[in-house]
């Protein structure tokens, strides 16, 4: 399973070297990756169907209790099959969609990283690993949204999406750590669950919920964080189909489903989820009525669908969970083709404006067929998978207790708007008379129309035989969430309230589609309300923040090195001085110090003289040389106090520092007093204060009781454990070798920084 998760990353890495072979239309071979993964995960179905999860554990950081633990249970497998199944269609479609794009290999690399991350997320049993894969999906989504990186709007949309989902990722990390700590340092979800820990009674329950909800709502575009999703439609259509309708945006839903056995069963869990989900679906459903851009309509209908899912999880009954589990694949199977069709229309008719598109069935009937089938399933016509899903949703809301009427009403309202959105996107562009301007449009190659047709047909197939999906996919997933629940799916439930509601939805949806026509006037009307929408508010907050931090930065980081040093020193003096002040008076016990010896006095004299010389000399070179003298005198002090390693290093460093200074100063113009006497006085005062503070600090440290255990440990073990006699070096390369590794990395980064700052200048000036 590790290989399955990593294959996407490995493939992406390999594309760095062999990616050029993917241009010229060979990208269709990349489809083998998701297809192979799909077959692999499908082969796990029988075992998982028996209720045995497939597990695999790889140690990662055992000292932190973090492992790469994969666990394919029913829920994980349901998502994994959606990810790889829809992924196969997307890869195939993209191989043609971006055939002539120069960076098609880059696109496939991001797409594969995304797929690997998504698989890793749904298969992870470890909370920390889940968080990491979750973040990777956000990051790969950022690159995919901003794929057309020469467009400012794309870049801005990518940044918005990253900000919102990245914020959610941080919240998820907090939630993961809190859950793990509440479970006594255990990060495996399955182990926590089997341990029978009741998190709802834990004092952290509320705060854990806050973080989990924050993560899920941002990722799954719930109100008021939904605005990044319509913005993300700047991405190429296959990305919208894959990430922003079928898979990634369902990550939040997945998280809620995954955690519902652990965190559910409390009002704090059910009430917020129900309210937020219900509000989101109605809000987005109404919003989509006013849009004219096809992708925008589909984006809002996706937000509405996500709202439905969150509301169902909030209701939390076995019926609601079943409805959610059916709605996830049903939605993927009709929304992905609708997005892909939008891409085709964009490609061959050159427009996504629904008020202009019409009559295209005459030139591309297979696309029209796919759109029609997807729209039927989307609307929930009988004998489609969407019908099964919608029935279950109504059933769940009807039995949801005291809120049944409200929720059912909201669900029907949303159903009507979804019907409308689906028909606008899947049917309207193909109906009516073909306008003159689209006469040039033609049937795209099979790689473009077969994938959406396949997905839409699958949506109908599962609608005809819901038992197949129910038995193989849905039942194991539901069993994992709610042991013993009935997962029987049927086409026909008899004449009952649910059927009546379904009929009302279809009739009202059809009426809406027939009478309510999208127009740019309506779009302009809602756009005037942007200012008070969450998006407008978020934009104003971010603008204000940018202005504030801009002012802050210009004040503190004004580009003058001397000012930086002044700031750093002042802050250090203030902080440490405050610490010293609150720590009480510093007692200097002179009797514990050794007598001053003649050579020490001599050294101090040398240092003092060289310092004064440095400050008051009129020649830069002399100042640098005098500073070197101070350094060498310090080296001698180290030698006297038996720290030869330190002395050697200090000696060489001082030499190099002087050389460096000389190299730079050599080229500077003659010495000029550039600072006013006032600022020189100020600098002198800060310098003296800093020196005084360090002295006080050193004296205070002397008063602290020494802890000889540490030195004793190294002295004893340096030779026995590390086979070295020089303790300093043994600590550097062995005991604390990892620190040294990081330090030399920092050194490398510093050198690269110097190099790039000085060498790499903009060439286009």
């Amino acid at each position, binding site marked *: 399973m590790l290989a399955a998760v990593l294959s996407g990353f490995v493939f992406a890495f390999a594309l760095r070297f062999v990616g050029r072979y993917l241009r010229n239309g060979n990208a269709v071979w990349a489809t083998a990756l998701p297809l192979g993964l799909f077959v692999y995960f499908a082969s796990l179905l029988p075992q998982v169907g028996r209720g045995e999860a497939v597990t695999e554990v790889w140690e990662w950081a055992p000292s932190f209790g973090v492992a790469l633990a994969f666990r394919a249970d029913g829920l994980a497998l349901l998502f994994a099959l959606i990810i790889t199944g829809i992924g196969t269609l997307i890869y195939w479609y993209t191989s043609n969609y971006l055939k002539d794009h120069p960076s098609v290999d880059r696109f496939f690399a991001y797409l594969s990283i995304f797929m690997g991350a998504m698989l890793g997320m749904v298969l992870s049993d470890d909370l920390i690993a889940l968080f990491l894969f979750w973040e990777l999906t956000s990051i790969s989504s950022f690159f995919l949204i901003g794929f057309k990186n020469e467009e400012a709007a794309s870049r801005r949309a990518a940044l918005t999406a990253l900000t919102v989902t990245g914020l959610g990722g941080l919240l998820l990390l907090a939630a993961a750590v809190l859950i793990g700590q509440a479970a006594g340092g255990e990060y495996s979800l399955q182990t926590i669950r089997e341990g029978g820990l009741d998190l709802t009674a834990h004092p952290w329950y509320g705060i854990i919920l806050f973080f989990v909800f924050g993560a899920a709502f941002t990722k799954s575009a719930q109100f008021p964080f939904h605005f990044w999703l319509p913005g993300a439609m700047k991405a190429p259509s296959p990305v919208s189909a894959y990430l922003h309708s079928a898979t990634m945006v369902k990550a939040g839903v997945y998280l809620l489903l995954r955690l519902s056995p652990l965190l559910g069963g409390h009002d704090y869990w059910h009430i917020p989820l129900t309210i937020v989900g219900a509000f989101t679906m109605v809000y987005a459903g109404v919003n989509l009525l006013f849009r004219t851009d096809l992708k925008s309509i589909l984006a809002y209908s996706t937000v509405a669908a996500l709202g439905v899912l969150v509301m169902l999880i909030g209701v939390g009954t076995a019926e609601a969970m079943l409805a959610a589990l059916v709605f996830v694949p049903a939605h993927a199977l009709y929304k992905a083709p609708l997005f892909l069709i939008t891409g085709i229309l964009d490609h061959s008719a050159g427009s996504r404006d629904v008020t202009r598109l019409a009559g295209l069935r005459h030139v591309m009937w297979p696309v029209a067929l796919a759109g029609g089938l997807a729209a039927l399933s989307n609307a929930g016509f009988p004998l489609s998978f969407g019908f099964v899903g919608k029935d279950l949703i109504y059933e769940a809301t009807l039995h949801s207790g005291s809120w049944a009427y409200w929720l059912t009403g909201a669900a029907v309202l949303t159903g009507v708007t979804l019907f409308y959105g689906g028909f606008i996107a899947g049917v309207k562009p193909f109906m009516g008379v073909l306008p003159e301007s689209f006469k040039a449009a033609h049937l795209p190659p099979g790689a473009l129309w077969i994938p959406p047709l396949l997905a839409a047909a699958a949506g109908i197939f599962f609608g005809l035989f819901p038992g197949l999906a129910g038995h193989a996919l849905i039942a194991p997933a539901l069993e994992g969430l709610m042991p013993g629940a009935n997962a029987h799916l049927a086409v026909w439930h008899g004449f009952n309230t649910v059927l009546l509601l379904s009929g009302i939805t279809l009739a009202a949806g059809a009426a809406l589609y027939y009478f309510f026509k999208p127009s740019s006037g309506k779009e302009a009307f809602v756009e005037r309300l942007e200012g008070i929408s969450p998006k407008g508010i978020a934009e104003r907050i971010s603008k204000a923040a940018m202005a504030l931090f801009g002012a802050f930065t210009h004040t503190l980081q004004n580009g003058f090195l001397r000012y930086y040093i002044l700031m750093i020193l002042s802050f250090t003096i203030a902080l440490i001085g405050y610490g010293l002040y609150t720590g009480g008076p510093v007692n200097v016990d002179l009797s514990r110090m050794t007598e001053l010896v003649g050579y020490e006095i001599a050294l101090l004299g040398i240092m003092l003289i060289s310092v004064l010389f440095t400050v008051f000399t009129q020649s830069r070179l002399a100042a640098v040389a005098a500073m070197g003298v101070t350094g060498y005198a310090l080296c001698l002090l180290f030698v006297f106090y038996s720290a*030869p*390693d330190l002395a*050697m*290093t200090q000696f*060489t*460093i001082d*030499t*190099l520092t002087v*050389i*460096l200074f000389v*190299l*730079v100063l*050599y*080229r500077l113009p003659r010495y000029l007093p550039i600072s006013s006497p006032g600022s020189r006085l100020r600098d002198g005062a800060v310098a003296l204060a800093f020196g005084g503070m360090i002295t006080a600090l050193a004296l205070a440290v002397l008063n602290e009781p020494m802890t000889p255990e540490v030195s004793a440990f190294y002295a004893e073990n340096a030779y026995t*454990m*590390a*086979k*070295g*006699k*020089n303790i*300093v*070096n*043994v600590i*550097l*390369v*062995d005991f604390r*070798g*990892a620190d*040294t*590794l990081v330090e*030399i*990395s920092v*050194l*490398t980064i*510093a*050198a*690269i920084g*110097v*190099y790039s700052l*000085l*060498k790499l200048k903009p060439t286009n000036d």
Partner: protein
Amino acid sequence: MKTIILQTASNYLLPLLLLFSVFILLRGHYLPGGGFVGGLVASIAFVLHAFANGLDKTRTLLRLHPAYFMPAGLAIALLSGLAPMLSALPFMTALWYPTPAPVVGMIGSPLFFDIGVYLVVTGATLTIIFTISETA
């Protein structure tokens, strides 16, 4: 600063100083020294050569840009830390060859780690100094 004396001396001093820096690197495990100081001494040797003969001469002598030493050193240090994981030991466990080799002394993964430090320090110092002296 083109003086014949310094030029002639630096030609002899460079190999001697480099040898000395390796000596410091190797003795670090038992006596004061180590990769960090060794690397600094090695870079001083090259800087001295550059002072006497001009940067271009030192560059031709080095053949490679000193920046290449940094990734090489980092890789050696990292690999010496990863090596024990091949035999299922934790990251950075010290592995020692049981018998000491002549001149070098005990050979083990910390020695290679120190060699990595040596290379990174040399590379970073020289990169910084060369870059600054070129562009200043």
